[in-house]
């Protein structure tokens, strides 16, 4: 930031104390806290930057590079094949099927997750007094790992002794074999995924609802709006930023979800739940085709980068970075 503008900016940026204290010259501000040289910040930040670049950034470059090679045998010599891995992937019906399954899984997670998130967060926001403990309870699934979530769902959806089938029976519905019917297996996976991610969605929407100005809803009450109208016409439009972020986050989680599906259905039956992460797992660790796996990694990273662009766009638009 140019020093000449320091004074003009200092008023606006009061939320950021260290920066805003640009009194005479921004550049000299740092020397007020003596006892360190110009190198100090670099020394302090270096370990984190090194760890993050070596363990997060380098693997991505490695994946890009490694996906351009192939071997004839496991552990054999690498030869450069250019984009062959990608052209092979995108003409491979199994891989295209995985993309199909991923789209279904992510879309399903979004529909179920956002519907439940809205249905639960709005009443939760109005719950007062003793009911507030429910908010704490809502978080619990967030503490449970994907694998454990899958094991829990395997147990409650079990055809023989699962309680979900008992409940269906009680309502006169037929027993469901959740893990041998392809559509039901997909539904079960979506359910487990939503169960573990719903806390995030609810917390986000709750956070948005708490910033809604009560005078707006009060004004609607005075004008004779029903609770239903108040919710749909006033509160809901005001939390659209949070809903948008929840959409992106849920997509992230569903797109990169391996643990939940691999332990729940293992990608089956007949590949009905073989999403991209499962395809990656099988290619890398069961078939040991590392170069092909790296190409799948790059595809997943590219999709993820697309989501990140949306995320950054949303954050900017709604001014939520730094909030």
């Amino acid at each position, binding site marked *: 930031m140019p020093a000449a503008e320091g004074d003009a900016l200092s008023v606006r940026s009061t939320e950021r104390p260290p920066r805003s204290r640009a009194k005479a010259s921004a550049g000299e501000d740092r020397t007020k806290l003596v006892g360190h040289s110009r190198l100090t910040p670099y020394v302090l930040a270096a370990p984190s930057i090194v760890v993050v670049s070596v363990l997060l950034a380098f693997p991505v470059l490695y994946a890009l590079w490694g996906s351009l090679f192939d071997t004839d045998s496991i552990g054999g010599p690498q030869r450069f094949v250019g984009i062959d891995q990608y052209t092979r992937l995108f003409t491979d019906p199994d891989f295209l099927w995985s993309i199909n399954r991923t789209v279904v899984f992510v879309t399903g997670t979004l529909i179920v997750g956002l519907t439940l998130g809205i249905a639960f967060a709005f009443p939760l926001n109005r719950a007062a007094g003793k009911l507030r403990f429910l908010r704490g309870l809502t978080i619990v699934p967030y503490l449970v790992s994907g694998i454990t979530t899958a094991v829990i769902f395997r147990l409650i959806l079990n055809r023989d002794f699962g309680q979900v089938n008992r409940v269906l029976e009680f309502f006169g519905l037929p027993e469901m074999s959740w893990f041998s019917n392809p559509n039901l297996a997909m539904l079960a996976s979506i359910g487990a995924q939503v169960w573990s991610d719903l806390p995030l969605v609810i917390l986000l929407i709750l956070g948005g609802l708490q910033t809604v100005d009560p005078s707006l809803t009060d004004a609607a009450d005075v004008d004779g709006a029903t609770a239903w109208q108040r919710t749909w016409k006033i509160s809901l439009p005001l939390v659209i930023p949070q809903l948008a972020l929840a959409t992106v986050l849920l997509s992230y989680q569903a797109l990169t979800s391996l643990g939940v599906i691999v332990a729940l259905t293992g990608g089956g039956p007949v590949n009905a739940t073989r999403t991209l992460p499962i395809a990656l797992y099988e290619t890398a660790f069961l078939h040991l085709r590392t170069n092909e796996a790296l190409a799948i990694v790059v595809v997943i990273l590219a999709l993820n980068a697309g989501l990140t662009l949306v995320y950054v766009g949303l954050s900017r638009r709604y001014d939520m970075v730094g*909030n």
Partner: protein
Amino acid sequence: MATYTSQTGVLAIARRWLRRVAIGVPLLALTIWTVFPLLMTLSISFKSKAGVSTDPGLIPSNPTLDGYRSIIGQQGFQGAFFNSVVVGLGTAALTLLLAVPAAYAFARFRFRGRHLLLLFTLLPRLIPGLGLMVPLYRLAVAVGGIDKISTLILAFTATVLPLAVWLLVGFFQQVPRELEEAANVDGTNMFQRVRYIVLPLAVPALITIGVLAFREAWNEFNLVLGLTSTPGSRTLPYELFLMTQTTGFQDNPGQAAFAVLSIIPFIFVYLRIEKYVVGGITSGAVK
């Protein structure tokens, strides 16, 4: 006129009840949605292997600790539990050790490279653990880091570090600079100022980060899958995953007991520090 008011009175009461139902029903559904799967798992964990099918009720008619005995007696479980605790604590400690100085630098200094902070916030979004699984496996093979606890700690630290630095920068910026300047006049050095002024004020943030780091290490599956190959080096999620992969007769009460044992310690920690964690989760999600 009188009938009119009584009518509106009835209407008002009806409306109030309607509102209670409109809030109560979803909240009841939310409670069932959250608690029912956990309660069922708890119930199955106290049944015998045969009892799971013959006694499908929520409350076991012949409660037994067989499931827990079989799991706790297993070497695989003991080793994985120990590894999870070590990796969890190690990740929390290393994350704080690296994040505190970095966050202090980003919060208090203006230096070339300060813009890296923004990149920090985006990296974990850009690079999910799933994308790291295969490349890190190759990297670990190349440097001989497979099956080492220290490799897991380092990898998990890298995945939580960006969020940790981000959260801490926000907290450090809220510590009034004047406090540090006053101490500076008294002749304290930077280390003392951080130790005695900044850190005590940032304790909630440190707890949040510690818990989030511990949770990451405790629950992460993808990287454990990529970075371990022998039984002695796995953590709990991988061990549980292997249990579900056994063909033949499944030890359902055992799996339920395993699930309960890997959730319970965490729920106790969580209950004590709920308000910090809730704030941390949402800011982690939004930022």
